[in-house]
């Protein structure tokens, strides 16, 4: 029964990772870049919600409604000021630029909020504590269900957007061939800016769940980035639903690993990620050729 519980908790945890990874997956899918500041952007969103809660005493969900448009705008600005320039300069430049940005965001958060650990759990009302005790060993938390439902709605909504709206077609067209998209009248820069805005805003949703589930501090970003990236890779890079599956696989690996030994939780996730990389890129050709 503890195993069943671990699986259920793993799915909930995985849904959280999928939300976190969604924006990363969008940006990779559309622009073929990985934003190394993605985790820090998520944490920034959590702080934004935290500030609103502190100032107004509102529920985190109200606070998020305030933070969301701000994050959309930030994403747009990030694209037109930093990423657009870096896209033109080869594959390393976006990585270098966003890594620098990651350090900047972390330390600005440190200056603004001190290294203290914060949580949004207190402001999430009933979602922090409510749970259904199914049996002695198995309990289903309201928060876990909420995150899973939100994740499925989020991925479903994105799928509908990409399949049935002109803006969605334009995004897919640009992702597949930006040059040809320009030639049929699509403003690829605007599409990129829209994609990054959506990605950053969804990242802040991940940050919100991070804050409600557990806690965060200014240095939490890199770990979230690694988990998000692992989810994207496990699910197959560039595939939207794959990211949801990848997130859940990562969550399961972590909770099942923790069953063996509490310290194995994160390690098990890393090992799954590396195993997927080996299976996908190293399969059968692991021969060592020594340089001349």
């Amino acid at each position, binding site marked *: 029964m503890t195993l069943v519980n671990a699986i259920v908790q793993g799915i909930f945890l995985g849904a959280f990772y999928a939300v976190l990874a969604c924006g990363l997956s969008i940006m990779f899918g559309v622009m073929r870049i990985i934003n190394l500041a993605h985790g820090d952007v998520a944490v920034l969103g959590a702080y934004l919600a935290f500030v609103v809660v502190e100032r107004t005493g509102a529920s985190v969900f109200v606070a998020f409604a305030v933070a969301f448009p701000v994050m959309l705008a930030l994403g747009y600005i990030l694209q037109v000021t930093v990423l657009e320039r870096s896209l033109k300069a080869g594959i*390393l*430049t976006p990585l270098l*630029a966003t*890594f620098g*940005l990651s350090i900047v965001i972390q*330390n600005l958060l440190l200056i603004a909020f001190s290294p203290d650990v914060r949580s949004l759990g207190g402001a999430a009302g009933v979602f922090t504590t409510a749970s259904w005790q199914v049996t002695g060993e198995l309990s289903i938390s309201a928060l876990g269900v909420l995150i899973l439902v939100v994740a499925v709605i989020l991925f479903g909504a994105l799928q509908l957007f990409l399949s049935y709206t002109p803006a969605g077609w334009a995004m897919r067209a640009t992702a597949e061939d930006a040059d040809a998209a320009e030639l049929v009248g699509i403003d690829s820069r605007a599409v990129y800016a829209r994609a990054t805005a959506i990605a950053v805003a969804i990242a802040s949703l991940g940050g919100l769940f991070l804050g409600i589930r557990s806690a965060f501090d200014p240095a939490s970003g890199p770990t979230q980035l690694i988990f998000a990236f692992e989810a994207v890779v496990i699910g197959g890079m560039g595939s939207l639903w794959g990211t949801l599956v990848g997130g859940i696989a990562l969550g399961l690996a972590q909770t099942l690993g923790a069953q063996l030994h509490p310290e194995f939780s994160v*390690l098990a996730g890393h090992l799954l990620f*590396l195993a997927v990389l080996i299976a996908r890129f*190293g399969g059968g050709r692991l021969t060592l050729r020594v340089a001349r």
Partner: protein
Amino acid sequence: MKVQRWTRTSRLFTAGTGGVALALASVPLIFDPDVVQKLTNLLILVILAAMWNALAGYGGLLSVGQQAFIGIGAYGTVFFAGMGVSPYVAMLLAMVLAGAVSVPISLLALRLRAAQFAIGMWVIAEVISILVRLDKNLGAGTGISLIQMNQFAPNFRQAYTFWMALGFTVLFLAALFFLLRSSLGASLQAIRDDEDAARSLGVRVASRKRLLFVLAGFGCGAAGVLVVANTLFIEPGSVFSVQWSAYMIFMVLVGGLGTFEGPILGAILLFAIQTIFTQGGPWYLVGLGATAALVALVLPRGLWGTIEERLGLRLMPVGYRVVAPETKTETKVQASA
């Protein structure tokens, strides 16, 4: 048209470098131990910058996980010293261990490109860090001292460490220098310019990259050895910190990605910044991060690359320069219509 490699400046400078190394060797005889310790840190930075540049600047491999090898070098030293060998022998063994570990890692990592490689390396570093934390004999998460060094008097210890750092610096810079001057240099350049084109021309991209990767494994391992020799205490949170990657990226980008001299300049610059802002602090890191991002965007060749371009200056003869004859010849090659 003729191709030349040495210029008068580069001849002078290469000879001068030997002189500088000799002069540096006398540092422990003249200065206080704390100055010697600081300069050891500078040499560590120089090694790290040169190694990260070897990967990114010449191999197109952007690693965010070189701290894996720093940690292996540092913890390897503690491990071998704990087994009873002399600490200095332990240091050599630890460096070799880091280099050896880089070979199996390269089998996986070099199959990855760009972001996959960058974050894949980061995850590998995290895995090694977690494994170290799980080992009680290595102090678990709380850190461990290299107590075996206490048998040496502080002054001598500091001097030995400095000389070792100098030896490693010369060794790895020379290794990189000769690597780039060998026939490998040209193929590396081809890989950096266009990996697919280089592969189609028969350049053995994988083995070339592996050579750089293993060199960087040794080099970063050596840096880790020096870190523990210089501070005598390490903890997984700091030696396996991604901050090392941040420093490496800063030094190489600001100095000049893909230039031999640039990373050395970058290391000196970072060292100067660290010496001036001794208290460190978040604003200092905001400055580093912003500078790195800005340089990547607006000055992709870094300080040294820009100097080289503007002044036609070249100190170390690792590249080739084409000296155009007086009459202009027009190539008849056409772009595909």
